[in-house]
């Protein structure tokens, strides 16, 4: 009971966040300067327009229409992409594009963490020495370059000049695993470099602080090696901030994929959002953004649960 309660409370807040954010979104649709129905059916007859108005629940009041939309949304009925003549459902686009973006985000996180964890621990261990200063300053420089700039740099150098990696399009893992990874190297590295830099700095700060703690001296007095102390005694308590940042950055990565997917012509979720924005697919956009909000909340909760695993003191109090 006392274990389940915080989780239930957590789920309650989660639901509230999703409902509130999507509700404001649906209000925005009504605040559009032109009528949504007129926009979609520019040439439509009054009867057709009235029918569409009913489908989009725009004939009801704000609250009813929101709850009707929300009910459909949960069932996966997200309406149609009207620009294509109403032939394609939003849901089909979501199921096609979302896994691609989630994979890109996952790979990016893996790349960033694989770079950041050893570097963060190493620079903290050598804090103030030359090797730390060189690495820290390099990373600081890297983190101040926007990811699309890194992407263009990589495209020109590694893609066009050296021809090591393809610079366009996406290949599914099932179609060709090797080509799949090869195509995703440049996009994920472009996204991951900045992240790796900020993760390294977070971890370095926390490891330096943890190294000053009594329990580290205590561990040393047992006669353990420095590497063992760093890995088993320091890294875990020092990784809480990193973990939170990594989970929160999943949200920020959604924005990152939007830019990167467009540069590398990858038909992911970010690409879909950009496309929907450009072609004024507001019905689809509403669902896309609702999914983004949902993802953000889910990553946050995951972070909290993970922190509970890493730091047992926080269990039940969060």
């Amino acid at each position: 009971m006392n274990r389940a309660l915080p989780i239930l409370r957590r789920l309650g807040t989660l639901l509230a966040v999703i409902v509130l954010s999507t509700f404001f979104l649906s209000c925005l649709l009504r605040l559009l300067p032109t009528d949504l129905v007129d926009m979609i059916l520019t040439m439509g007859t009054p009867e057709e327009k009235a029918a569409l108005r009913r489908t989009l629940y725009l004939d009801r009041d704000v609250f009813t229409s929101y709850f009707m939309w929300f009910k459909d949304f949960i069932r996966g009925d997200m309406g149609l992409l009207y620009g294509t003549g109403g032939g394609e459902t939003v849901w089909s686009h979501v199921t096609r594009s979302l896994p691609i973006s989630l994979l890109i985000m996952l790979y990016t996180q893996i790349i960033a963490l694989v770079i950041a964890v050893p570097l963060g621990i190493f620079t903290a261990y050598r804090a103030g020495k030359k090797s730390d200063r060189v690495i820290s300053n390099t990373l600081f420089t890297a983190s101040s370059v926007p990811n699309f700039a890194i992407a263009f740099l990589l495209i020109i150098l590694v893609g066009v000049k050296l021809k090591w990696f393809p610079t366009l399009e996406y290949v599914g893992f099932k179609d060709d695993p090797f080509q799949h990874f090869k195509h995703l190297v440049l996009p994920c590295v472009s996204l991951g470099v900045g992240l790796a830099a900020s993760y390294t700095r977070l971890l370095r700060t926390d490891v330096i602080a943890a190294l000053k703690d009594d329990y580290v001296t205590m561990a040393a007095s047992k006669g353990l090696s420095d590497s063992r102390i760093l890995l088993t005694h320091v890294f875990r308590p020092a990784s809480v901030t990193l973990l939170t940042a990594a989970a929160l950055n999943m949200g920020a990565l959604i924005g990152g994929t939007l830019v990167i997917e467009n540069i590398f012509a990858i038909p992911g979720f970010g690409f879909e959002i950009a496309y929907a924005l450009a072609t004024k697919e507001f019905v689809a956009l509403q669902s896309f953004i609702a999914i983004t909000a949902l993802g953000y909340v889910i990553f946050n909760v995951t972070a909290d649960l993970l922190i509970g695993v890493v730091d047992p003191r926080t269990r039940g109090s969060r």
Partner: protein
Amino acid sequence: MSNNPMLSLRNFSVSFDTARGPLYAVRNIDIDVADGESLGIVGESGSGKTVLSRGAMGLLPKRAAHRSGTVIYDDHDLSQTPRKELREYWGTGMAMIFQDPMTALNPVRKIGAQLTEGLRIRLQMSKTDANARGIELLNRVRIPDPAAVMEKYPFQLSGGMRQRVMIAIALACKPRLLFADEPTTALDVTVQAQVMQLLSELRHEMGMSMVIVTHDLGVVAGHTDRIAVMYAGEVVEIAPTKQLFANMKMPYTEALMKSIPRLDSPSGQRLPVISGRLPDPTQPETGCSFASRCPYVTDKCREATPPLVEATPGHSYRCWFPIGGSR
């Protein structure tokens, strides 16, 4: 086993670099700890007693702390030994109990993991053996239900329990010399007595030497063979425990003694305090370091530094005008 002392410090000093120049936390210490002996090191906060014990063991960060003089442990001179080789002595030869059991145990690792770590890595025990030995150790420091405690995290235990766990960790690899740095300061008075009693028993059982560092003369009174009183980084008086209590020579020792609360003193009476504060350790002193706070100070005390002289065999002090005369 040789007749040489277990630990022998000669002309031992530790200094730190500060913005105002070198800070001498410990100066020219000569101390021996005999095999099986229990030595108390007593002094107020900032007198250098923690730096002395950590410095002797070699636990101070190398970059910040400069050691000089010699440290001879079990006939090995460890003063120049690199940290990598010093580790061979830590845990199995010398071990340390830290002051604050709230911060000295890793908050995110289970008691069992922290307790058996030394056994597994230093003594190459198997996981099962180390676990069995861990439970045995917890039993020995009188922790009820040791098997369950192995699975707990430090924050789930009381302060006294944590201090017992720390003692068990320090003793896990059967060290021959145990440093106990303020082992009872963070504990309730009733628990303090229990923990000291436990430490004494374990010392006799295991035939260890022990150095107890404390600011409280009352804590070490019944548990040490000898006591060294430290002031401003120096040993100002050292004597067998009984001798020190019966026949102290140094006014600082007397002042420390008077500041122990007594049950038979009238209620409401103010406890005597030692007024003033420790001299600035970055400024070289002339004269006796205690001169500015000493009730019996004379001009001579301010001008000339008193050397450590022997009153009776084994009892030395640093004072021009010792209590009870002589000199």
